């Protein structure tokens, strides 16, 4: 294959937009430029119709009622609206929220804000496999608990939480269940009602739609949930999210949802085979570990630690050709390695050595083969450069070495 081509294996960061979604959007930039809130002329009516249709497409993907879909600017806004909106709306019932240590920052930072506002937050631990302990969840629920917020699938490892079991516990205890389903929607079947999820955040750009548009699912019956608006203004989206709707974005989101519904099963089968091939190819290297529960995982994701190789350095060996992400500290401004992997009990050394590969609808078999070759070559090169690999090969117990932490 053409080695100058850049191979994209970072689909958990964002996905390319499906050309069919782009085609659907284009008229709403040009000949149909109306504001969906303009009630007095055909430009507005056409835009409103397009938004209504997209709302149905998105709702269909989730087997939800279109009225349960609130359009936002993306999953971060949806997470904020869901958590802060419940905290305000249900303040008379309690002030306690339960979440996990491995949530996305959009949830964790919002929860920190809730704590500053006087709320109580419990952060559940996860096991080595990335899954929460259901007994610990149930034990954490008090009479002050108003919300359990647990992500559907993790962005770094792809690990899928036992959603139905969590939903059952929340139903039994009578607390609201919210999920950040950003990484799951459009890729695996997600049905909030059947699962017992009352509020759910997700976004278009992780499912082959455009960036800048997302949604919050808010259950309308059994129970009827309300969230306090966090954006004040014209009262759009049934008063829950003011702001002129991003009509072309919403149209693209809708089309992406329709395509996902039709293609999800086929994509998942193809991608899990490719992912397994990638994983098997890379795990031929010595001292290579897959992070997260392999039995409950997104079909397109693998997170691998290559021991005694630093993730960012490793990426530099192939990032002219292959785009991936690392849990290495060096890729973050904080110099801390991935908090998700550390919460799973990985040593900081293995967390620094991790690479996340996330495949997508447009990933080919040829690309996976090239990636196996290029990444293996990179790992071997970096190990040749690594003093700790040399020490490991000489049989030195690295735990017995007194390191000068810096």
């Amino acid at each position, binding site marked *: 294959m053409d080695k100058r081509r850049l191979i994209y294996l970072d689909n958990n960061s964002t996905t390319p937009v499906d050309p069919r979604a782009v085609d659907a959007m284009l008229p709403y930039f040009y000949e149909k430029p109306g504001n969906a809130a303009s009630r007095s002329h055909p430009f507005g009516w056409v835009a409103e119709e397009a938004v209504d249709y997209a709302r149905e497409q998105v709702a269909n993907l989730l087997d939800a009622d279109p009225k349960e879909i609130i359009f936002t600017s993306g999953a971060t806004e949806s997470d904020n609206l869901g958590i802060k909106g419940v905290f305000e709306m249900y303040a008379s019932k309690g002030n306690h929220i339960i979440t996990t240590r491995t949530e996305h920052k959009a949830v964790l930072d919002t929860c920190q804000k809730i704590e500053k506002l006087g709320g109580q937050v419990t952060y559940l631990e996860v096991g080595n496999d990335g899954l929460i302990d259901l007994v610990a969840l149930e034990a954490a629920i008090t009479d002050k608990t108003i919300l359990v917020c647990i992500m559907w699938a993790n962005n770094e490892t792809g690990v899928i939480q036992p959603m139905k079991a969590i939903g059952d516990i929340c139903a039994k205890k009578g607390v609201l269940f919210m999920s950040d389903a950003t990484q799951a929607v459009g890729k695996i079947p997600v049905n909030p009602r059947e699962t017992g999820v009352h509020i759910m955040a997700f976004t278009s750009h992780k499912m082959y739609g455009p960036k800048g548009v997302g949604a919050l699912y808010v259950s309308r019956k059994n129970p009827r949930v309300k969230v306090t608006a966090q954006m004040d203004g014209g009262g759009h989206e049934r008063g829950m999210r003011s702001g002129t709707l991003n009509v072309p974005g919403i149209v693209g989101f809708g089309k992406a949802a329709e395509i996902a519904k039709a293609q999800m099963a086929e994509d998942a089968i193809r991608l899990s085979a490719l992912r397994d091939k990638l994983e098997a190819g890379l795990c031929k290297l010595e001292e290579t570990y897959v992070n997260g529960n392999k039995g409950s995982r997104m079909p397109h994701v693998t997170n691998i630690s290559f021991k005694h190789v*630093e993730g960012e350095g490793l990426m*530099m060996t192939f990032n002219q050709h292959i785009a991936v992400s690392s849990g290495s500290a060096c890729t973050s401004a904080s110099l801390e*390695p991935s908090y998700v992997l550390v919460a799973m009990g990985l040593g900081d050394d293995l967390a620094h050595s991790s690479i996340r590969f996330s495949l997508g609808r447009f990933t080919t078999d040829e690309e996976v083969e090239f990636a196996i070759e290029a990444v293996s070559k990179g790992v071997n090169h970096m190990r040749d450069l*690594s003093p*700790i690999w040399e020490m490991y090969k000489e049989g030195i117990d690295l735990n017995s070495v007194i*390191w*000068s932490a*810096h």
Partner: protein
Amino acid sequence: MAYSEKVLDHFQNPKNVGTLDKSKKSVGTGLVGAPECGDVMRLQIEVDEVSGLITDAKFKTFGCGSAIASSSLATEWLKGKSIDEALSIDNMDIVEELALPPVKIHCSVLAEDAIKSAIADYKQKNGVETSAEVSVHS
């Protein structure tokens, strides 16, 4: 983050990768950093007994591109220098030469520590009085 040309060059063509015989009296070894911090550098120098000059320098580094480039550059600079000249290498010289961004300055600090640690090891082996104080950043 994009890397500077010089970092990329040292990363793609690292100079002086390897291992010197640490049991030799003429070889000083410095091992700094920690795996859990994401950086470990091992830097070695070989000193000519007669001239007192560093005749060879080798490194191996576990770390990001900037850490590898910093140690590669350090070994290049060390060759041909006297011990005292080597001790005067400052981490900011490395920062400047490689155009390291602020978030990567610790890589240069680690390289300076590795140089000082290798020299201290050599001096200790050879019973040389330490004139300059060896300060290891923490």
